[in-house]
């Protein structure tokens, strides 16, 4: 690769050939404003439609060009702050805003909106243009994702996530000219499409066009209902992200503060989804070993991720027998609360409300699935996202930074390091391998760290020898990567024993319900590292060593894979329409 010398605002800069003006400017500390552009370097996504025209700069002798989509050439001279460039940016922003609802005060996205920030950055005080406004019906059909396309600015980031990264293929630009908008096929409600509710569209939407469906009001209602015993479970990935909403550094472990915050909100018991994760490991390991020893269908695929489950139900209905039949940690946890725990504390399960705090929007849909009911009760009543929990804290005047660190309640708050790393891509597999190794080798594991399976890469693999058997394991995050793997399996070209798949790039730490990363994947890296730090510090790092889990099997479930366990902790999958 050769380098190229250019000048930006008369400052010389040398960059690799192929670099865009935007990147070159960043190198010398000039941050040109952008809106439609999205660069998720770690996931090999560079979305530069140059459709918003906000990043225009003046090229000497040529006039205005978009800096996000123009590569540098030798001798190029660019000016970012000329009268012409500044005016162009303002006019473009005014035009976008002339067709944008100005309900910022009551918009879900307020405070996190990139369009709003841009208005602040350019100090726009007046929108001179008036005219017709785009009007599109609201889509609140699903449990997970709300669409208000009147707020769409046609940056088409969501399309890139849905089609290129996730290969789900639900969102597409439709119509033309003023009527152009990102829409579902045939303008169907999202609920009636093959959407997996991964929420990656909402995670990158710069405005309030795509948002999570909120269930905060329901949670407030049950918290204030004296007849309800409200139990909360917090997913592994939430504890390393919630702090960001209160000004903590990305990667801050805020478990203790989150627990005390939840108590102050009025939850009767604060438990850990990592307990459910440890339980999942027990069941999944049992299923894996059974298939391994008895010539069952391999590879076994993890089934913790609801988006992934819906994805294969739509796209690979011929492979419904390969995923593990285990429910996700969220659902296992709910099932145990409404049976075992309800009996233990002597409360009618109908009076218990299970709320889950999840990094995910699909968990809302998962909780509402018909399969996930016990005696006509949903195992999990309300699933709210990390962001929603942050909003509830804010509303209740709870500042996490000023809270003492508290501990989870017992017994369903006990977890091992293996249960915590579920939140990062590779974690479920590592936890299962640790457990399988202990069971098959019949001795405590010496080295519990499987470094090869960690990190944000979309595809990772490893081979470990357990009890004389070489186990080949694959890990994939992002549904596009999962599709490639599944196609190999369909063609019988892959010889893995076990595969973990998570729908979101990076795993749950990058979920659609997490605080917005605004394209900065370094934040995801830090969240992931924080989870492995918790694991490293844990006294117990193999799920089968969780005392509360042992007690649960002794008192209630008998053994992993028992008929009781199957009844409560396992599920079935169904074929769904290809479109």
């Amino acid at each position, binding site marked *: 690769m050769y380098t190229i010398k250019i000048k930006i605002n008369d400052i010389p800069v040398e960059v690799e050939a192929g670099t865009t003006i935007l990147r070159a400017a960043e190198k010398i500390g000039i941050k040109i404003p952008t809106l439609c552009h999205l660069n998720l370097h770690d996931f090999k996504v560079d979305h530069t439609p140059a459709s918003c025209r906000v990043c225009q700069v003046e090229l000497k002798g040529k006039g205005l060009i978009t800096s996000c989509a123009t590569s540098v050439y030798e001798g190029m001279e660019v000016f970012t702050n000329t009268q012409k460039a500044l005016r162009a940016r303002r006019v473009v922003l005014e035009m976008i805003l002339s067709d944008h609802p100005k309900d910022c005060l009551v918009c879900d996205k307020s405070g996190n909106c990139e369009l709003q920030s841009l208005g602040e950055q350019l100090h726009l005080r007046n929108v001179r243009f008036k005219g017709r406004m785009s009007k599109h019906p609201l889509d609140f059909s699903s449990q997970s994702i709300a669409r208000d396309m009147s707020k769409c600015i046609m940056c088409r980031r969501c399309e890139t996530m849905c089609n290129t990264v996730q290969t789900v293929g639900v969102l597409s630009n439709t119509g*033309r000219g003023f009527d152009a908008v990102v829409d579902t*096929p*045939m303008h169907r409600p999202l609920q009636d499409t093959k959407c997996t509710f991964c929420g990656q569209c909402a995670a990158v939407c710069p405005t309030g066009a795509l948002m999570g469906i909120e269930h905060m009001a329901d949670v407030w209602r049950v918290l204030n209902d004296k007849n309800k015993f409200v139990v909360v479970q917090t997913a592994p990935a939430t504890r390393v992200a919630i702090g960001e909403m209160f000004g903590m550094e990305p990667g801050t472990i805020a478990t203790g503060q989150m627990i005390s915050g939840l108590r102050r909100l009025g939850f009767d018991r604060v438990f850990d989804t990592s307990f459910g994760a440890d339980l999942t490991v027990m069941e999944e390991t049992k299923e894996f070993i059974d298939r391994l020893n008895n010539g069952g269908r391999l590879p076994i695929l993890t089934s913790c991720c609801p988006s992934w489950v819906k994805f294969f139900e739509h796209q690979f209905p011929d492979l419904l027998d390969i995923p593990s039949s285990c429910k996700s940690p969220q659902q296992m946890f709910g099932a145990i609360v409404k049976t075992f725990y309800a009996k233990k504390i002597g409360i009618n399960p109908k009076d218990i409300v299970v709320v889950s705090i999840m990094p995910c929007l699909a968990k809302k849909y998962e909780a509402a699935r018909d399969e996930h009911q016990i005696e006509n009760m949903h195992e999990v009543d309300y699933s709210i996202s990390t962001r929603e929990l942050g909003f509830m804290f804010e509303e209740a005047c709870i500042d996490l930074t000023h809270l003492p660190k508290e501990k989870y309640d017992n017994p369903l708050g006990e977890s091992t390091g293996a249960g915590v790393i579920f939140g990062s891509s590779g974690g479920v597999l590592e936890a299962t391998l640790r457990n399988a190794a202990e069971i098959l080798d019949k001795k405590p594991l010496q080295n519990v760290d499987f470094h090869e399976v960690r990190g944000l890469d979309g595809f990772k693999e490893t081979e470990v020898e357990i009890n004389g058997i070489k186990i080949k394991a694959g890990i994939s995050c992002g549904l596009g990567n999962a599709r490639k793997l599944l196609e190999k399996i369909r063609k019988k070209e892959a010889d893995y024993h076990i595969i973990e798949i998570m729908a979101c790039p990076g795993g749950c730490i990058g979920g659609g319900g997490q605080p917005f990363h605004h394209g900065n994947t370094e934040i995801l890296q830090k969240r992931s590292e924080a989870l492995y730090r918790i694991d490293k510090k844990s006294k117990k790092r193999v799920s089968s060593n969780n005392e509360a889990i042992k007690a649960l099997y002794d008192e209630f479930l008998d053994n992993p894979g028992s008929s009781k366990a199957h009844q409560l902790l396992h599920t079935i999958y169904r074929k769904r329409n290809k*479109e």
Partner: protein
Amino acid sequence: MCNNCNFNNLKYDSLESYISTLVSNSSSTTERQASLLPVLYKAQEIFGFLPEEIQEFIAAKLNIHLSEIYGVVTFYSYFTMKPQGKYRISVCTGTACYIKGAEKVLKRLSNELGIDEGEVTKGLTYSLDTLRCVGACGLAPVVMVNDKVYGNVTEDMVPRILKDCKEGKNE
């Protein structure tokens, strides 16, 4: 195939055999995507319009997401998802035709047929649309009925155009 539309299988067969001339199982994604426009064009020629079920059929055959196909169909004004009349009347409203009085011709057609632009008469006999420039600006204003071109059209010519249709001159 479809309960509502009653397309016979022959039409589907004909579309399928056309698709097989363009793509096969070994075709690359780019080849399949490149074939989308000609396939949609052919499908509209065969069926007259592109309802949901035909787009789904094409999605399955070309292994392209339905959303992408829907995006293309809604982008090009040539494609329509509504059934068209036996006589598809299109008034050119490109710059030249517009200046030479296309608007008046359109209004007269609309009055005579009792339908607005973008609509179809009962019994699916006539449909009325506008289009942008057929490249015959010397003949402005231009009206097209199916594949036949009428040039230098005035309001008063409208009854004659419709009479041609009735007499089967435009089939």
